[in-house]
């Protein structure tokens, strides 16, 4: 018994027994995925995912929505649920990265009450302008804004939203200014863009695919290491001269603190298998402007740890505060 490893053997054996038992037992009942966007693209995508998960697990997988408050209500619901892995939070960068810095206080502890399990998707965002703005590329856009920026406007879904924070990142990098006009209703934002009230937004490739061919909107550049297959003519941020700029909302999973690691691993694996399926990528991921990431818990947590300080700095620079 000199070897520490042999001394730990009984413990390891116990763990080895415990872990498979947990994973085999999981899930012992219906699994609930909770998110904050009823009727949005995330809802649609999660419905398809839920169906595949339910086939794999032999248990019903239901979608439950708790809309509002920048996902705080949905995240809080999961944070306070039983840590058996049967209540899973599906959230965006709001919960995983921004909210701890945007809000003075949250009803749950973002660092300890929820464990990030996997980043499912990335959504590369690009700079989208209205079709009749007389610029054809990013350089011309920047030149125009240097002249007229303060009287030109960009739209977003509110202070602290990625459309606000992301655009400010670009404006900061380009050294220009534009007026921020927040919206609550997507329809009115788009209508004002068609009508010429709003000149630009940051958005996913969906809008460019939808309105590019008719010339109503134009995407000048988009995030990513490579060009998007559906938008072969749109340069990447790096190609357009902004190698350090990244605007990409995320969709990730979290479970309540205390959820067994084996269960976390099973959740991560099950989701990864579903979303990596070529048919799923073809039919669901691509058309929604998503990209599959399917990272491990460690990778996701590292990504969050890397992003947070940068966002904290940016949010402080922009002087955004939200009370709760």
């Amino acid at each position, binding site marked *: 018994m000199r070897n520490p490893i042999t001394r730990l053997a009984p413990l390891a054996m116990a763990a080895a027994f415990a872990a498979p038992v947990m994973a085999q037992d999981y899930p012992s009942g219906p699994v609930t995925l909770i998110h904050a966007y009823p009727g949005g*693209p995330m809802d649609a995508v999660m419905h398809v995912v839920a*169906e595949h998960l339910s086939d794999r697990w032999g248990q019903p997988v239901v979608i439950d929505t708790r*809309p509002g408050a920048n996902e705080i209500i949905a995240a809080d619901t999961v944070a306070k649920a039983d840590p058996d892995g049967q209540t899973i939070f599906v959230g965006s960068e709001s919960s995983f990265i921004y909210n701890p810095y945007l809000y003075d206080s949250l009803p749950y502890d973002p660092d300890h009450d929820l464990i990030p399990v996997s980043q499912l998707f990335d959504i590369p965002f690009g700079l989208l302008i209205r079709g009749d703005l007389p610029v054809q590329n990013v350089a011309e856009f920047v030149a125009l804004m240097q002249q007229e920026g303060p009287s030109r406007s960009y739209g977003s879904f509110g202070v602290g939203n990625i459309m606000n924070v992301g655009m400010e990142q670009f404006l900061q990098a380009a050294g220009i200014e534009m007026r921020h006009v927040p919206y*609550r209703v997507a329809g*009115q934002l788009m*209508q004002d863009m068609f009508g010429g*009230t709003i000149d630009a937004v940051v958005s996913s490739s969906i809008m460019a695919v*939808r309105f590019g061919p008719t010339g109503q909107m134009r995407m000048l550049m988009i995030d990513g290491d490579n060009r998007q297959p559906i938008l072969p003519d749109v340069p990447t941020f790096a190609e357009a001269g902004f190698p350090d700029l990244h605007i990409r909302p995320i969709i990730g999973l979290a479970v309540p603190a205390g959820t067994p690691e084996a269960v976390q691993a099973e959740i991560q694996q099950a989701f990864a298998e579903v979303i990596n399926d070529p048919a799923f990528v073809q039919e669901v991921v691509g058309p929604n402007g998503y990209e599959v990431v399917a990272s491990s818990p460690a990778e996701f947590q590292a990504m969050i740890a890397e992003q947070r300080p940068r966002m904290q700095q940016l949010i402080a620079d922009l002087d955004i505060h939200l009370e709760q």
Partner: protein
Amino acid sequence: MDLLTSFADHLSLGLGTALLPANLLYCFAGVFLGTLVGVLPGLGALITISLLLPFTYHLPVDGALIMLAGVYFGADFGGGTCSILLGVPGHPAAAVDVLDGYPMAKKGRGGVALFTKAVASGWGSSFGILLLMLFAPLLAAFARQFSPVEYTALMALGLMAAATVGRGSLLKGLAAMVIGLMIATVGTDVNTGFQRFTFGLPNLSDGISLIALAMGLFAVTEVILSAGQKSVSPVRGSLKLRDQLPTKAEWRRAWPAMLRGSGLGAVFGALPGTSGGMATFLSYAIEKKVSKTPEEFGEGAIEGLAAPEACNNAGIGTAMIPSLTLGIPGDAVMALLLAAMMLHGIQPGPLVMVLQPELFWGLIVSFWIGTAFLLILNIPLIGLWVRLLRIPYPMLFPGIVLFTCIGVYSTAHATFDLYLVLIFGLVGYALHLLRIDVVPLVLGVILGQPFEENLRRSLLLSDGDFSVFLTRPISLAALTVVAALGVAAIWRQWRPAQPLARAER
């Protein structure tokens, strides 16, 4: 001529898809299911479609969309049935049907009310769909004229109409509207992210739920009021179909109202962000304004039912224009329909019309077929519905309250909203005792948020210059009407008392 030939092309293309036996079946199933769920208080199209969405993955795309659209129409229609029979709105937009439809039912004219509603909604839908097929590009271009400035002026017009529509005095109407505006300020201020009157409650950060407010003010208040009456005798009335038809005099009053209502609904429908009962309540206010007998409103005036109903359904038709041609969802239900499209690999937007014309026009024609199914399904049902009125109302109380709570809970899964229902039920009762009309209050809540947002957006864009409201023609026209309404209301209130005016009250 060009317009007509293309119309004929589109129609035949659409009929080719919509008349396929399978699609007819999906359409009927959707309409039927929608009607059933819609009749239950508080449950509407949104919850039905979101529950049904997973099942439609396995259907072909045209069938799936046709069925979901059928649910949309059906639930909308069913909601009004509930308003008329029980005084409990099926969904917030149907709350307007309570105002005159329910008094009609209480007077034993429930069948007439249901029949009028069916005809008005059938007409409204057909009108909206016809406009959609003929003038979609024109209407979309018209809607683009509406910048935040025009929206602001339009909301101001709505608020003024709301304040002066009240049953009581002008002062009480204004007070109710202002209370509504104050309720609308609760939540996150979109311009600054500042939390207003939320008391640290995340549930209030997106404002007070409109559905909780409407269900409280209408359903719970109605139950409290009825429970307070000593004996509520069940409504008696003939069950013969002939007695369910409006009389000639009623018909003469209803059809011009239907025309006005559908016109207003068509315009509002084409403007994104104006849904949620805004147009229907406005249409009600206008009817009361133009009526020679405004005192009958709230007591069972047939115009007060026909106009908003036609308005609502015409709006559904034209709301499809931004949704289908641009991919801009007009409301939450349309957002779900677009999500369903995307799930089937169809990118909503201007290209759908070009790339998948069979699907696009098939869907639109199926709206028409769905409307026809609705009428076929519901007119024979009138006799059955009217029988419901013979059940002593107190026996329905538990069911009404239960379904109201289920309906409200299903929208956001928030127990908090149920407390709101209770609170607004009590508020509604208090307002009743004070003889303050709830209509201006509800309109204040509905219009408050868009009014404030667009006002501030306009000023943000004009650098604080108020003159933009007077230099743009649509805005100037709307504001002129606002001023005229205000002056007229004040004049009526404070002119020297005339014997005739006295007699009217």
